């Protein structure tokens, strides 16, 4: 319990202290003379567009990329999952097999060729989102969910002469909230934390997401200013933590839904 909580506590405490207080043996775990200085310094750089980029810029990039991946992903992957589960067409089994094989291959294993394929789009926002919108994993989650929906739901619509699109929008969408929530949450965790891809694809501070901005601090400083870095880290994790605490039940359910696919 303590082991799990301590690093979180250390992060929050350190963000209100000077680096000398944080790196001070056991004393580093005891709150003393707390200061807002780190947050104050950060807020000053929030709007100022320096060569090193501004905090506002990093936030904007991370937010836009996450929105694109989450929203775009929900649309294309739910449609594909529904098509695989309900439409009858030639090659359906083959496509399903393709999806299952691609679920196994992690992004890291194709990052290098992808980097060369898309190097023309370096330092753009769109390239940071592009490879993650279509996701074999999300398609598979939607597929299994739609497969388990009772077919009677759609029969009434079919009798009314509705095509697959109208059935999807009017009948399936309202009944698939848990699946949408799971996919949204899991893809948000993934994209908000992603590091390798933006590392390869960005070299200009104006397109850095938060993870790269903070990663550069972790990597470079030989005598790190832990106070400011910790404050920065708190700001990085706060959106996720709020999201997590508010939607905790959904979070846990969505991770648990992974086990279904085993």
């Amino acid at each position, binding site marked *: 319990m303590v082991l799990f909580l301590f690093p979180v506590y250390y992060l929050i405490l350190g963000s209100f202290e000077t680096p000398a207080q944080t790196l001070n043996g*056991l004393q580093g775990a005891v709150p003393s003379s707390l200061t807002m200085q780190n947050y104050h310094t950060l807020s000053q750089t929030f709007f100022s567009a320096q060569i090193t980029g501004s905090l506002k810029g990093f936030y904007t990039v991370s937010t836009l990329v996450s929105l694109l991946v989450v929203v775009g992903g929900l649309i294309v992957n739910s449609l594909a999952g529904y098509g695989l589960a309900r439409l009858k067409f030639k090659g359906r089994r083959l496509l399903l097999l393709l999806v299952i094989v691609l679920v196994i291959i992690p992004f890291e294993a194709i990052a290098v060729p992808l980097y060369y394929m898309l190097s023309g789009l370096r330092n753009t926002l769109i390239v940071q989102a592009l490879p993650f919108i279509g996701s074999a994993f999300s398609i598979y989650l939607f597929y299994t969910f739609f497969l388990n929906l009772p077919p009677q739901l759609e029969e009434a619509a079919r009798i009314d002469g509705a095509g697959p699109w109208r059935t999807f929008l009017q009948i399936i969408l309202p009944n698939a909230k848990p699946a949408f929530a799971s996919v949204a949450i899991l893809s948000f965790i993934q994209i908000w934390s992603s590091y390798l891809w933006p590392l390869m694809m960005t070299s200009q501070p104006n397109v850095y997401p938060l*993870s790269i901005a903070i990663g550069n601090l972790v990597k470079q400083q030989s005598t790190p200013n832990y106070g400011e870095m910790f404050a920065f880290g708190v700001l990085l994790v706060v959106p996720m933590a709020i999201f997590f605490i508010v939607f905790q039940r959904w979070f846990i359910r969505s991770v648990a839904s992974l086990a279904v696919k085993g």
Partner: protein
Amino acid sequence: MLIPGIGLIIAFMLVPFFYSLWLSTHVEIVGSSIPVRSVGLEFYRHLFDDPIFRGVFLKSLQNNAIFALIVVPLQTGLAMFLAILVNRSGAFVKFCRTTFFLPVVFPMVLTSLIWKAILAPGPDGMLNAILHAVTFGHFTPQYWLGNVHLALPSIILLSIWQGTGFQMVIFLAGLQGIPSSHYEAALIDGANRWQLFRDVTFPGLRNTTIFVVMVTTIFSLRVFDQIYLLTQGGPLNSTSSVMYLAVSQAYEANNVGQGAAISVVLCFIILLMSLIQRQVLKERVD
């Protein structure tokens, strides 16, 4: 209806996979007029033959294997233990559950940052200070991330901290799937807590366990962020991983073919592992 989703995964997953096969068998010098030429399996031969490169590659493979052999059983066991512990209702239990899961929403960048401070060298580092205190001064401060023998265990420690909550939740879902009648039957037979675990809980979690082991194994093979951020594979390649090597070859050493070849090897290792584990899963179910 299927076209956007399937099209995207073909374009950004299947095509890159085949492209990496092509890249790994050709030499292309970016931005030069020297024509692209085929080199066959030269880059793959490098991995196992080249006197200098072979050492680094095999060392990275070995590190991945050590990482997996420690992380998979330890993290799976810990996650199962915690899941059983918090599989109850109550405010405090709920708080514990939240605590164990919280690190999962911490991006690896942030995890690396916190642990960089905790693992700081010298007597001022938190871990050093704690160990110094609990051993009543018998512990000599260590340079955790700079010591050939301690760097990999340090990386493993922070990876387990970040990853355990995720597996715990999957186990929780597995526990909810065990019918309570099984426990009742065992209790009527006079089973004690250990027997309950051995005869009801553990068999009930069999499929969940296999799934968790599979996910964690794949996770162990792709480890990159924390190594890049904290040790850059050092000291003396003691923390280099296959993925770290692939990226540093392709991206930093500008050796596209070599990086692609390593990616292809990694892909095949992962596919092979999944096939084996899928087979095990099937046998157990039958």
